């Protein structure tokens, strides 16, 4: 099963490689990983999407907790959370396709951020389902390139 794990870490040299090394060394997989500073400049948040059975995920959570610079580990799976991902897509925008691209951008509340002859670059954010659906709709029109940030997540409520 897929899990989204939020990890607060000391914002210090080498901490990313400690976390990445833990996953690779123990054969856990990382589907996506996002890292950035929090409101406290001394603390960074990593949002890691991983998968495994219950026993593996339990190990992942415990092993992360064991790292000295890790301050807190929260498994957001199943909790009431907002999950988002930012996607940048370059898509064909020749004569027939152009209108369809514009329509999809409108429907998915995306944004065209760059225009070139026969190519639009679109910025879109959303949860997993929306991102998948958007990319699926664009595919027949000819996707030239996709860049995704990986997921970030935050719990709902105060």
């Amino acid at each position: 099963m897929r899990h989204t794990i939020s990890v607060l870490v000391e914002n210090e040299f080498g901490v990313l490689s400690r976390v990445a090394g833990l996953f690779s060394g123990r054969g856990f997989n990382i589907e996506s990983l996002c890292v950035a500073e929090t409101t406290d400049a001394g603390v960074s948040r990593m949002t890691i999407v991983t998968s495994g059975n219950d026993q593996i995920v339990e190990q992942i959570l415990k092993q992360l907790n064991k790292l000295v610079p890790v301050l807190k580990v929260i498994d957001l799976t199943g909790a009431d959370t907002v999950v988002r991902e930012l996607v940048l897509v370059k898509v064909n925008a020749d004569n027939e396709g152009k209108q369809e691209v514009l329509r999809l951008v409108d429907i998915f509340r995306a944004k065209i951020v760059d225009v070139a002859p026969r190519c639009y670059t679109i910025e879109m954010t959303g949860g997993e389902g929306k991102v998948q659906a958007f990319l699926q709709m664009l595919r027949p029109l000819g996707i030239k390139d996709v860049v995704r940030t990986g997921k970030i997540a935050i719990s709902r409520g105060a």
Partner: protein
Amino acid sequence: MQMTGAEIFVKALADLGVDVVFGFPGGAVLNIYDALFRNTRVRHVLCRHEQGAVHMADGYARASGRTGVCLVTSGPGATNTVTGLATAYMDSIPLVVFSGQVPTLLIGNDAFQEADIVGISRPCTKHNYLVKDVRDLARIIKEAFYIASTGRPGPVLVDMPKDVLVSPAEYNLPREVKLRGYHPNYEGHPRQVESAMRMILSKERPVLYAGGGVILSNASAELAELARLLAIPVTTTLMGMGVFPGSDPLSLGMLGMHGTYWANMAISHADVIVAVGARFDDRVTGKVDEFAPHAKIVHIDIDPTSIQKNVPVDIPIVGDLKDVLRKMIRHVKGKKEAAAYREKTGAWRGRIAAWAKTHPLTYKPAKGKIKPQYVVEQIYKVAKGKAIVATEVGQNQMWAAQFYTYDMPRTFLSSGGLGTMGYGLPAAIGAQVAMPGRLVVDIAGDGSIQMNIQELATAVQFKIPVKVVILNNGYLGMVRQWQELFFEGKYSHTRLPQIPDFVRLAEAYGAKGFRATKTEEVHDVLKEGFAADGPVLIDVVVDPAEMVYPMVPAGAPLTKMLLV
């Protein structure tokens, strides 16, 4: 007063109570060696290879319970410590390795003797540091010792660039360590302890399965008290040898791949297993799906990651073993339940005794050949069971575990997790440095001893009187055993036709050499060797065909043992 980083380093070590450092000098740590030269509080033991230095610090830590300390230079000095770090990490041994590093400005430039040791050692240390500012040095040293020795202990590496060591700063060793991401949990949860006790008391076939954690927690007395209070038989892992007296009637000896028949049978038929500071390693469980099929499992460990890692656990208790065992004892001490339980479990102990009778630990004497097991028995006799025994890895290690009775913790030093050949001699030297008055014996094989034999020079130079007994069978015996059993006797590259004359080799190093080639000589040669001053190497030419039994083939369940 301003001091250089090198002076801060030496003063911090002394202030933290470090009495000895095992090390090897080089360019990046010259300033430290200069500061060491002028100090009188910290002693330095010069090893002959950095791997030896780490094993010495490791042996020192295992024998004494104090944190071992190493000092090496950058590049190859640092990379040579990796096997030692991995060995200590697998066995949770507290030690701190200090490595020199090229100046901060040169890091990443492929400078002379540069290696990214922080990157290289990350997966085999509990934590590691690169000191970037001399003002952080004292604090980091303090933290390194704290992390190494608390919670589940382990090795910590501190990498110190040369410019940090020559820069000046105020000496400021913090009194306390504040780490917001590191809080080991020492107190076992009372409700979990209560459930565990209720579970144990409701069962009839209990076994205590004790590992190296009991040594690390200094909880042997508590373990023995609980075991005797409820008359629960105790089996130990290789790492746990000595945590419960091997001569006690409740002792089942070691379990697992080369464990006793009755320990493995007991575990396989138990209805409740209490794992104390052990981690269900594959060498212990055999085929994990068929491990202890009838048992509920209580698992006590300070490290939450050890729990539920290899086997499902019914009642986990995270905490310091000493604390948890005390709570368990309090639960039943002086109560009628304890006496009733001892009575109820009598039949179970009888069953185990019967297993012990049918297949005792034994070997078949052969005419004209020295049996290695006999040698180990004689070591026990000559030492009167009072030696600190270090081992190498392989058959020598298993026979040392099987045929010597360990009654005290910290008397059996062996690379259990990593299985590092070449561990024994330097570990014995480290143990002897920690325990100058004790008899320290390294039980070795002719293969393993050659992996760090250069440390004989260290022993001779510093008059460290370790006694090495080589069970010389002319083979890499354990690998040979597997080839005999599982590869149709094709002894691919396990025969060692070119073995040095160990007696003359010992003499070349300035140590004393002895040899036994006949069974009748063994006792006297050992006696003479152990009584001799200074480091001694005793070469015992043993039967090359001898095998370690019982043996559970890899991947087989514990009940499928190959027996003598």
